[in-house]
């Protein structure tokens, strides 16, 4: 299962027949395993990694540090779930350290993201403070480089 998941993480579009050849399995077995992983909720979805400079460069992404007052019952979970439900929120993590939640937000303009923080996020009950950082450039995302590509040169035949 580990090998299958690693393949799906790096190239989910690889035809099932080819995955089968890589793993030494039959195509039907691969399909069954993937179906099982999806049904068990191990695989939650598949996504493309997009180079924002080439497509929709004006989209704004912000990392927002959020300080929260935890609740007697449930800790951070209720407020985190409440924040995560907004469409603007791409990711939401509970963190150790100076702040509690790290929220990654995407919007069409700076103003839109600012409005989300000012009107929705910081006014929420339990939110004590926020600090917003805007993304300027992406170098690497989900293990994939956006600019840096190195193709090592090799001799065409070697011992």
């Amino acid at each position, binding site marked *: 299962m580990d090998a299958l998941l*690693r393949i799906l993480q790096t190239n989910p579009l690889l035809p099932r027949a*080819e995955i089968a*050849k*890589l793993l030494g399995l039959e195509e039907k077995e691969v399909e069954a395993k993937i179906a099982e992983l999806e049904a068990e909720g191990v695989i939650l979805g598949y996504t493309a990694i997009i180079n924002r400079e080439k497509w929709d460069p004006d989209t704004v992404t912000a990392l927002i540090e959020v300080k929260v007052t935890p609740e007697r019952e449930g800790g951070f979970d209720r407020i985190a779930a409440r924040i995560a439900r907004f469409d603007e929120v791409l990711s939401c993590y509970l963190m150790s350290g100076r702040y509690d939640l790290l929220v990654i937000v995407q919007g069409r303009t700076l103003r839109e993201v600012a409005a989300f923080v000012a009107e929705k996020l910081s006014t929420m009950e339990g939110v004590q403070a926020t600090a917003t950082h805007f993304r300027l450039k992406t170098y690497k995302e989900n293990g994939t480089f956006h600019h840096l590509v190195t193709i*090592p040169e*090799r*001799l065409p*035949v*070697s*011992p």
Partner: protein
Amino acid sequence: MSIRVAKHVERLPRSGIRDFFEIVQGMSDVVSLGIGEPDFATPWNIREAAIYSLERGKTGYTSNLGLPRLRRAIANYVERNFHVSYNPLNEILVTVGVSEAIDLALRAVLEPGDEVIYHEPCYVSYNPSVQLAHGVPVPIQTRAEDGFTLRAEEIEKALSPRTRVLMMNFPTNPTGATMPPDELKKIASLCRKHDLVVLTDEIYSELTYDSQPHYSIAAYEGMRERTIFLHGLSKAYAMTGWRIGFACAPAEIIEAMMKIHQYSILCASIMSQEAAIEALERGESAMIAMRREYELRRNYICRELNAMGFPTCMPKGAFYVFSDIRLSGLDSKTFSLRLLKEKKVAVVPGTAFGQAGEGFVRCSFATSLNLIKLALERISEFRSSLAKAA
């Protein structure tokens, strides 16, 4: 006046790989399965460590034996992974690749006319290295039916009063064979009985697949004292260009090898040695990731070649498949040349690795999956065109 070349050098054949390389170099759009080195660049943490050492101005000679810290790292690594312990002060020598270590070891132990038993198909340098050290190469042919493993009884048959050294390379380039531990035990006992020196080149040891352990003959009872253990970072750590190998052996042997090394090479380059420390101490996870990738490609290429009708046993180690092409009706060299000219795919004729390689070609899977797929498509077309012509 022309300069006369020494006879024993003139007699050496050119490497079959070199001939092939020159043909391929003149062509464009060739997909090569002929490359005996990883397609990965050296893991970044290793490259970064070398850059840092340059920044600190570490640009001088090192001890002839190699940096003390590197030798300690090697001692730990060998003990951890091969279960043999060597003293970093006088039982480890850092060399310029395993190739240099093989040359040093042979020159250190052979008297002119001493015989060296080794198994074919094997790496291209074994036979010439023995000859350059004024020894007599005695190849044993391994067979596809045995998974290209070496059998103690075959060694016994090849013994003579002049036999001095047994040279082994498992996992093997070009066949990917590994040694079952029970056969290795028999070989060890044979070496003790006949007082042979064992030269074991274990450069591919980390690249052993299917979660199988690697067994080193050096770890068998009574073998440490008669074994010259050779290893390096080129293959598993994708560091071919750094040229770092090492030899571990009893102090007298290392002292003798170091003498030759000191007068001919002096020391391996310091930046490479600095990089090697990082590789041995913190390179494992990157190495495991590369091994996983090779294993997937191995499964793929092996299944496809078998499906085309070229019997190919699943290699247990290294990154080559040694494919039986006899049903094509062509010999290895003709097959490889025609495949190159007609379909622009480079493979290496099995005969480059000794006569036992006739009827086989070596395909490397140290190449991206996309290129492997393209090469396999072309090989399949070639196979069909041969079938039609027949």
